[in-house]
Structures are given as structure tokens and as C-alpha cells.
């Protein structure tokens, strides 16, 4: 189990480490992803570094390269502040811009807790089979790409990236074809149909607080 969590952690880190922008095209994405993988594995394999320091280093890469605003927007879907989808009697469930920003912060923290903090760094002998990047159909002028990998010859993990003109960013990860955004969107929609946005944010805050206090105790 720990091994699986570690692999997922590495994968998420690798995902998060993508990519400063170049002109575009698959070759650039490929080389950047490879560099990012090496960086992440380099940190994970440092024998002299304490685990907590490793997590901090990985988290820096994560924050720099992962588009949390976009993943928050996609996760909230019709409840996002910039969505125009009709919500009918649930119109009070739409986030305001300020609420969404607050949610983004706590959601980011929650993702970090879920993946990074569970890495134990004991099993770092991962075999990553990286497939060439595929440039997907652009949407509204936003370039999109997909990179497929196979971890230890058995777990397929795909990264979906977008480039809004500045940098390539990853906005979704698919493990065994299951999308991170889709999973959270379904889960949070169920909560938002019963509760207002503030309640969802508070629930996540409580989870984060609980996790951090448990971490301190251990």
C-alpha cells in the first residue's frame, strides 16, 4: 500500500513539475517532462535529505508548475464563479470569486496532504516508461497536450497539459484512465447539492487541520 502511495506521490510530483514554456510542440513537452522527472526522482532519492525536507522541496516544484486555479475551476464545474450554467434553485451554491480563491488555497493544501505527505521515500526504484507527447486539439486558442506513462510496467498514468500562452501547465492526471478532476468534481457536486460553498471549504479546512495535527503528533 505504501508503495502504491509512494508511486502516486512520485507521479503527482512529476505531474506538478511540468514545464516552462517554449514555442510549443510535443518534443518540447517531452524533454521538459523528462527533466522534471529527473528532478523529482533526484530529490526523492537523496539519501542525506530528511523526508520532511524532501517534501518541502517537492512542494516548491509543485506550487511553481501546477495550475491550481484551473484545476479548481474544472473541479467546481458549474459551481465555479465564472460559470454561466444555470443552477436554478441551487443558485446560492455558486462560488463568489473570493470564496473560490479561498477554496483553491485549501484544496491545494488538501491535495498536498493527500499525495505528498504520504510518501515514505523507501521505495524509489520506479521504472517509468514515457510515451511521446500528443498534441491535442486546441480549445478556444488554448493549446493542449497529453503525456502517457507506464509506471513499473503496470500502472498507466496520463498527464493532461494546457498552455494559455505563457507556460505549459498540467490540469488533470488520469490514473488507470480515471481522472483526478472528474473524481473530485463528482464528490464535491454531491456535497454542494446539500450545502453552500462555505460549508465545503470549511469541511476541507477541517480535514487539513486534522491531518496537520495528526502529523505533529506522529
Amino acid at each position, binding site marked *: 500500500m505504501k508503495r502504491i502511495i509512494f508511486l502516486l506521490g512520485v507521479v503527482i510530483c512529476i505531474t506538478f513539475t511540468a514545464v516552462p514554456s517554449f514555442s510549443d510542440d510535443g518534443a518540447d513537452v517531452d524533454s521538459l517532462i523528462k527533466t522534471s522527472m529527473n528532478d523529482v526522482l533526484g530529490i526523492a532519492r537523496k539519501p542525506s535529505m530528511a523526508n520532511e525536507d524532501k517534501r518541502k522541496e517537492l512542494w516548491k516544484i509543485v506550487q511553481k508548475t501546477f495550475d491550481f486555479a484551473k484545476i479548481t475551476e474544472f473541479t467546481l*464545474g*458549474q459551481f465555479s464563479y465564472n*460559470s454561466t450554467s444555470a443552477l436554478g434553485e441551487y443558485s446560492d451554491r455558486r462560488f463568489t470569486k473570493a470564496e473560490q480563491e479561498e477554496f483553491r488555497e485549501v484544496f491545494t493544501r488538501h491535495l498536498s496532504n493527500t499525495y505528498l505527505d504520504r510518501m515514505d521515500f523507501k521505495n524509489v526504484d520506479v521504472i517509468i516508461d514515457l510515451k511521446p507527447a500528443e498534441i491535442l*486539439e486546441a480549445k478556444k486558442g488554448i493549446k493542449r497536450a497529453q503525456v502517457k506513462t507506464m509506471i513499473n510496467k503496470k500502472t498507466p498514468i496520463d498527464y493532461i497539459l494546457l498552455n494559455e500562452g505563457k507556460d505549459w501547465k498540467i490540469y488533470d492526471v488520469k490514473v488507470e*484512465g480515471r481522472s483526478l478532476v472528474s473524481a473530485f468534481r*463528482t464528490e464535491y457536486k454531491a456535497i454542494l447539492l446539500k450545502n453552500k460553498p462555505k460549508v465545503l471549504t470549511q469541511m476541507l479546512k477541517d480535514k487539513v487541520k486534522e491531518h496537520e495535527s495528526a502529523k505533529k503528533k506522529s
Partner: protein
Amino acid sequence: MKKSSLEITVGIFVIIGLACVGYLTVKLGKMELLGDHYYNLNAKFNSATGLKPGSNVEIAGVRVGQVESISLEPVMKIAMVKMKIENGIELEDDSIASVKTSGLIGDKFIMITPGGSVDMLVPGGTITETEPALDIEDLVSKYVFGDKKETKQ
């Protein structure tokens, strides 16, 4: 007179019977008789295993259309699924289409999770965010046999 009214009654019953057969044929075959109440959407999947023409398309468990055809996209060698969605069901362009299974061994269907984009999908449009069919057997075998290398160690 009596004979002709008997014939008329039998005729009426035959017509009612035929109408019932016709109705059942249309209903069970999921055919359309009058007008076109659907518009088409496409979705590309890495795998559409188990999905077939006529499979349901659902939102929140409610049937909103059906799979019209499944073909192989020649360039990327992935599955191109053409769906018929009921008119009046508008979908955002960041909606996610997932191939799901009814229960553990039930029929495959497509579940659409609506998004929140300002732009809506137009007839003939393509859902870009998709999740392929999950291979339960594959997952079970991975769970059962695990990492052989790890076991040896």
C-alpha cells in the same frame, strides 16, 4: 349483418394488435418515428470496450441519449463514439464523458458529468475530456497478483 359486425370487431382487434406490436418494436428497438429529437455529439476514448451502439448516455443516472456508432479513429487508433443527445440538454464544453458499468458486470454506458464552462457544445461537437472503460479483470489481477518483484523480495 351479424357476420359483418363480427368481421369489423376482429379487424379492429387485429389493427390494435398490430399497433401494439409496432409500438413495442419502436420502444424496445429504441427507434425514432416522428421527427428528430436528438443532436449528435462525439467523444474520443482510449478504450470503448463493452460499449455498443444503443448503449445509454446518462447524466446523474437519467438517460439523455444513446450511443449511435463506434468507430476507430484512423490516426490515433482510438475509439470515436458518436452519441445522440436529446434536444434541450445543453452541455458545457468542459463536460466529462466516462464509460461506466451498471453494477460489477452490467452493461456499459456513458456517464456525462456536466462542467461549468461559459461555452456550450454545439451539435456535432466533441467532448474532449473523457475517461475510458475500466478493465475490472485487469484491476483484479493487479490486486490479486500485485507486484511480483516485490513479492519475491
